[in-house]
């Protein structure tokens, strides 16, 4: 049990970077960007092929990020300069990327099992410094008997994801960031304050898809392969993370919301892992589970709010009738 939850948190925190990207386009820019399904694979493919060709893993990961930025800015150009509807711009780019990704990768699947990745380079460090042993004995105190192979991925990714979160928070508070948020909130207004909303949308989509591709590049290195189909349904997983996170952790401030998105990505992985433990469900049911999760996360908060409101009214009525009786 601990091992599978551990795995869920580990992959959740990698996918959280993708969820932050989806948050930027979907929530901040109010742009339902379906490019994600393609740009995630672009990131994975670029990282994989670079590593296979001897590029140092860190540089390969940066390449993945840049490739995603490029894909996102093309979606932005289609929408702003080509005046194509946001949904359609994303779909067009997603479908175009499928072929482009195949070209980048050369074949549909690139194994990385025998390559050194960002993670393989750092795993021995955790072994020799004794961090692994220390953490293992820590969880042992809570009655855990089987230990994960290495804590390296989790610790590194918590670190990386939090840095990205802090940078995102900062960016959204800068003058450019404020204008970007206003572009999603009231485009006409921010244009009347001399902001070029076209460029802002392109910048926003570039950043968003950059994060998505970065996540893709890391997932490929974590999973040990890049596959041309690994992006199918990625946008829904991103949305699930954003919506679940917002529902559980709230959206009061930007800092809280970005943290909620990360939390949502982890929560999503845990729920899916637990769901797949149910005998009746198979791996192929994952997409259905995802869709159901999103539906629940969208409907549940409204139902809870309604029932709370009803109870409040009931209490008020009771109090009133009690008063009437006393008189």
């Amino acid at each position: 049990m601990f091992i599978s939850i551990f795995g869920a948190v580990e992959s959740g925190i990698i996918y959280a970077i993708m969820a932050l990207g989806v948050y930027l386009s979907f929530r901040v820019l109010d742009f339902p960007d379906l490019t994600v399904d393609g740009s995630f694979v672009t990131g994975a493919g670029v990282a994989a092929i670079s590593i296979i060709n001897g590029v140092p893993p860190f540089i390969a990961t940066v390449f993945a990020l840049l490739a995603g930025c490029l894909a996102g800015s093309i979606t932005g150009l289609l929408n702003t300069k080509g005046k194509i509807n946001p949904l359609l711009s994303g779909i067009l780019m997603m479908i175009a990327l499928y072929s482009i990704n195949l070209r980048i990768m050369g074949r549909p699947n690139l194994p990385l099992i025998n390559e050194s990745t960002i993670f393989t380079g750092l795993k021995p460090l955790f072994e020799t410094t004794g961090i692994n042993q220390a953490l293992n004995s820590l969880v042992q105190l809570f009655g855990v008997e089987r230990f994960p192979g290495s804590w390296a991925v989790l610790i590194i990714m918590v670190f990386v994801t939090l840095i990205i979160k802090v940078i995102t928070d900062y960016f959204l508070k800068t003058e450019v960031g404020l204008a970007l948020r206003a572009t999603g909130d009231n485009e006409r207004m921010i244009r009347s304050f001399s902001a070029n909303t076209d460029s802002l949308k392109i910048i926003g989509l570039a950043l968003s898809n950059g994060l998505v591709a970065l996540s893709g590049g890391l997932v490929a290195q974590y999973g040990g392969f890049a596959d041309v189909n690994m992006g199918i349904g990625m946008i829904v997983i991103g949305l699930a993370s954003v919506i679940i996170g917002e529902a559980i952790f709230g959206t009061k401030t930007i800092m809280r919301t970005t943290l909620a998105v990360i939390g949502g990505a982890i929560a999503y992985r845990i729920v899916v892992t637990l769901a797949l433990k149910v005998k009746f469900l198979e791996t192929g049911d994952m997409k259905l589970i995802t869709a159901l999760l999103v539906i629940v996360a969208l409907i549940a908060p409204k139902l809870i709010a309604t029932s709370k409101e009803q109870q409040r009214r009931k209490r008020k009525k009771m109090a009133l009738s009690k008063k009437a009786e006393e008189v």
Partner: protein
Amino acid sequence: MLNLSNISVTFNEDTPDEKKALQDINLSLNSGDFVTVIGSNGAGKSTLMNIVSGSLKPDIGIVEINGKKVSQLPEYKRSNFIGRVFQDPMAGTAPSMTIEENLAMAYARNKKRKLRIGVTKKRREMFREFLETLHLGLENRLNAKVGLLSGGERQALSLLMATFTEPNILLLDEHTAALDPSRAELITNLTGEVVEKFNLTTLMVTHNMQQALDLGNRLIMMDKGQIIFDVSGKEKQELTIEKLLHEFQRIRGKQMDNDRAVLG
């Protein structure tokens, strides 16, 4: 300050819906002029505003601001030196962002937006001082989301945001029309105050004749895409609603459409 020469705009040209929105308009505003624009629906008032702001380009004609030809500048570049308040109180602010964030965006109007924090301590103090001049208590709610404000509060904030960077031109597009009478009066008074304080060159469209008479030093009346009446100075001060209606009748030889022209 603002110079419009030979501006013509036609919508749906060569179709049965053809509409000559502006016909050979010539208008010149001196620095510090406060011009109120009245006219019935379809007279071309809003088109005139859109031509100045750049959200619409004229078929022919030249727009000059401060001696600089701006006809080809897109709206977002022109808004470097044009402040604008819309009729809809929702249009001038970003609802899901806070009061101080909205002010920070307005503050960046005539500067290059950079990767530095928008709301600094120093700026927050400045915003607070500006908000105090509105007398609405907004200075104590810097972190409130603008969507929570009432229509009147939002419009007052929009007015402040449009003016406190002292733009060359201020455009007011029926900015009190969506408010109840007491709020409208408040905004009208505030408008007079800020325009005077910053000595802004202002163009205000209104359907409220009394407001057009009370504010500004010059009044123009439009009909069918043309300026048919233009008074300023002492002559404008002595103008009354009766005289205005009479003037319209004399020029056009018909009753003014009173559909939305509110009397008094």
